[in-house]
């Protein structure tokens, strides 16, 4: 081993590693392979090939974090196994969460139905047919109380996939915790709160960009003092990839979104090191194992550079890209659904070999319907088998130094920078979205991919090759079609039993506060939520002040 690396290793052991080991000892004294051969914490190059190991790859837990954000990675603690779930009513979802926690899941991840995600009450005409379909229906604090009934909010961390009305759902969560006797500085979790990718790929936007960015800044500011353990945003490439982007586009557009959020927050006077440590990311895991691993490593390296060089962050936490991963929904096939278990296994390995902090594994039946309890269990077991049986967790960043992987990491980084710089030249991500540039780039990739599948150039097992005649599996999960009526009835009860004068006062105060762009809306939203104002009512007050976003259709 070259002297330079040997010396740096000693220094890393004395500093970065020692600090972490004192606070978080590794799970075992000695890690071994399946055949009892001892495995070292980290493997380093025997010889310096290009002379830039220390600068480009370096040590885990140190800038530029190519090898991971923790010096011990999974030897210290495994990733959080977090299955995204929710459907029907708050009661049904509550019992699914308790089931998952009983099965050894270590964090919750809440799926909301589309009316909730777009700020409509269940009895709004536009909600027809959608109530409780892709997630749980939440209309007011009442539903949220039921959703977390019997789940101690000081013990679990909760991720909520909510964007445009993120402030409202976060406020509900804080109030439910307080009612459980858990103060807001103790709760841990994440709100997705990433509106830019909604405009780009996911579609659950409400307001135009400027007031949306204001709400995000309000959350950053409020949480930095009031809810310090909360991840205030999960900047998401997942949906960009699902929409058909390439791996490079996924991280490039996500990081460009991140740059926009940081620039905006600094623009309203927030100190970068006060909020940047609570930014988190969310990526996809696809089937091309090594490309995916390289993607995560490249993304960490780019973000570290962006934060240090572009935004002059000083704290290490501000430069670390921590991310959640979900396996690729779009890679699942309706044909021969058992094959999806194998796809998810490969994708799980990609996420873990790439150093994810948490992971959702998709269930085999998700190209057909919401997953059943049985198929969710297999998906969770997939993670547990990789974690406890595969051995890939025994050493940090095990694929580092592979000629192919390091070259891919460099190439992906370079191509992603090209996109990021191009978007910066356009004036930033909001401008790039309004010009339809990002959407068009993604659609072109999606179109190319699908054409290649159609022509048979790209093989999808069970779809365009190795096909069989088959019947759809029985016993798929079905959401009760009467749910809309049930939820509307519950909502009416809330409206009949709350103090309606108080509710309308808090809503009016919120509307007034929204007019002054300097006012932080979080305290006003908290008050409205507390008075059992519904999500639709709160969103409508803000719609009136902010207006609504209309998509620019790009084909």
């Amino acid at each position, binding site marked *: 081993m070259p002297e330079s690396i040997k010396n740096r290793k000693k220094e890393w052991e004395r500093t970065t590693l020692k600090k972490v080991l004192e606070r978080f000892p590794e799970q075992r004294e000695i890690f071994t392979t399946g055949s009892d051969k001892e495995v070292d914490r980290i493997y380093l190059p025997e010889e310096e090939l290009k002379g830039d190991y220390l600068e480009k790859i370096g040590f885990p837990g140190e800038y530029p974090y190519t090898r991971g954000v923790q010096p011990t990675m999974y030897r210290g603690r495994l990733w959080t196994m977090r299955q995204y779930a929710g459907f029907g009513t708050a009661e049904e979802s509550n019992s699914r969460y308790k089931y998952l926690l009983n099965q050894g899941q270590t964090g919750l991840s809440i799926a909301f139905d589309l009316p909730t995600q777009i700020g409509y009450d269940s009895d709004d005409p536009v909600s027809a047919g959608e109530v409780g379909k892709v997630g749980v229906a939440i209309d007011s604090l009442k539903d949220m109380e039921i959703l977390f009934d019997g789940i101690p909010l000081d013990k679990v961390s909760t991720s909520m996939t909510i964007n445009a009305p993120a402030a409202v759902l976060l406020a509900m969560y804080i109030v439910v915790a307080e009612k459980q006797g858990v103060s807001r500085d103790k709760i841990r979790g994440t709100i997705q709160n990433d509106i830019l990718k909604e405009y780009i790929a996911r579609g659950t936007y409400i307001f135009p960009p400027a007031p949306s960015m204001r709400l995000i800044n309000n959350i950053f500011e409020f949480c930095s003092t009031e809810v310090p353990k909360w991840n205030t945003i999960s900047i998401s490439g997942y949906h960009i990839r699902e929409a058909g982007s390439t791996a490079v586009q996924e991280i490039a557009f996500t990081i460009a979104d991140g740059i926009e959020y940081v620039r905006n927050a600094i623009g309203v006077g927030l100190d970068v090191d006060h909020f940047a440590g609570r930014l988190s990311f969310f990526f996809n895991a696809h089937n091309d194992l090594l490309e995916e691993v390289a993607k995560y490593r490249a993304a960490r390296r780019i973000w570290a550079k962006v934060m240090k060089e572009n935004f002059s962050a000083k704290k290490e936490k501000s430069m670390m890209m921590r991310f959640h991963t979900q396996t690729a929904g779009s890679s699942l096939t309706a044909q021969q659904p058992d094959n999806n278990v194998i796809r998810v296994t490969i994708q799980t390995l990609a996420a873990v070999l790439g150093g994810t902090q948490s992971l959702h594994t998709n269930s085999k039946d998700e190209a057909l319907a919401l997953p059943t309890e049985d198929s969710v269990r297999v998906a969770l077991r997939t993670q547990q088998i990789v974690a406890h049986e595969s051995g890939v967790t025994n050493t940090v960043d095990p694929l580092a130094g592979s000629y192919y992987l390091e070259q891919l990491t460099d190439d992906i980084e370079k191509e992603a920078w090209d996109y990021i710089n191009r978007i910066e030249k356009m004036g930033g991500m909001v401008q790039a979205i309004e010009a339809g540039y990002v959407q068009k780039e993604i659609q072109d990739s999606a179109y190319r991919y699908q054409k290649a599948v159609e022509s048979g150039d790209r093989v999808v097992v069970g779809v365009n090759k190795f096909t069989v005649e088959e019947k759809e599996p029985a016993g*798929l999960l079905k959401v009760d079609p009467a749910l809309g009526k049930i939820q509307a009835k519950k909502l009416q009860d809330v409206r009949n039993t709350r103090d309606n004068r108080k509710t309308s006062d808090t809503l009016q105060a919120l509307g007034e506060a929204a007019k002054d762009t300097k006012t932080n809306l979080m305290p006003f939203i908290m008050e409205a939520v507390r008075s059992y104002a519904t999500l639709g009512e709160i969103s409508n007050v803000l719609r009136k002040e902010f207006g609504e976003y209309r998509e620019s259709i790009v084909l």
Partner: protein
Amino acid sequence: MSEKIRIEIAKPGLDGHDRGAKYIARALKDAGYEVIYTGIRQTPESIVATAIQEDVDFVGLSLLSGAHNELFPRVVELLKEQDAGDIIVFGGGVIPEEDLDFLKTHGIQAIFRPGTPISDVIAFIESTRKGHAA
């Protein structure tokens, strides 16, 4: 008549999964049809209004949220109410096999499920077209 066949591709309901709809729209355009794509979050009412205004021959509905049993038949119903029952409605998305009969009896003439090649969609259009030339 010898004008091109006109097809509206629409996304009823609230889901933003437009990858499939956009692919179909673009691939049908490439195949020589006139395609009108509505964008996401359309109501059955707005889809039908567009269909009539644009004088389309087909309406293709894409939905991945599971609200198809409510929203697809509503489009057919509204078309009939507006004397446009001759417009052919088809659909696609995450739609379980057990819903296919229900949708068929409610006037949705074909459902294309995940993994369907575009050639199947084109074959359907060509076999059901009425006196048009592509």
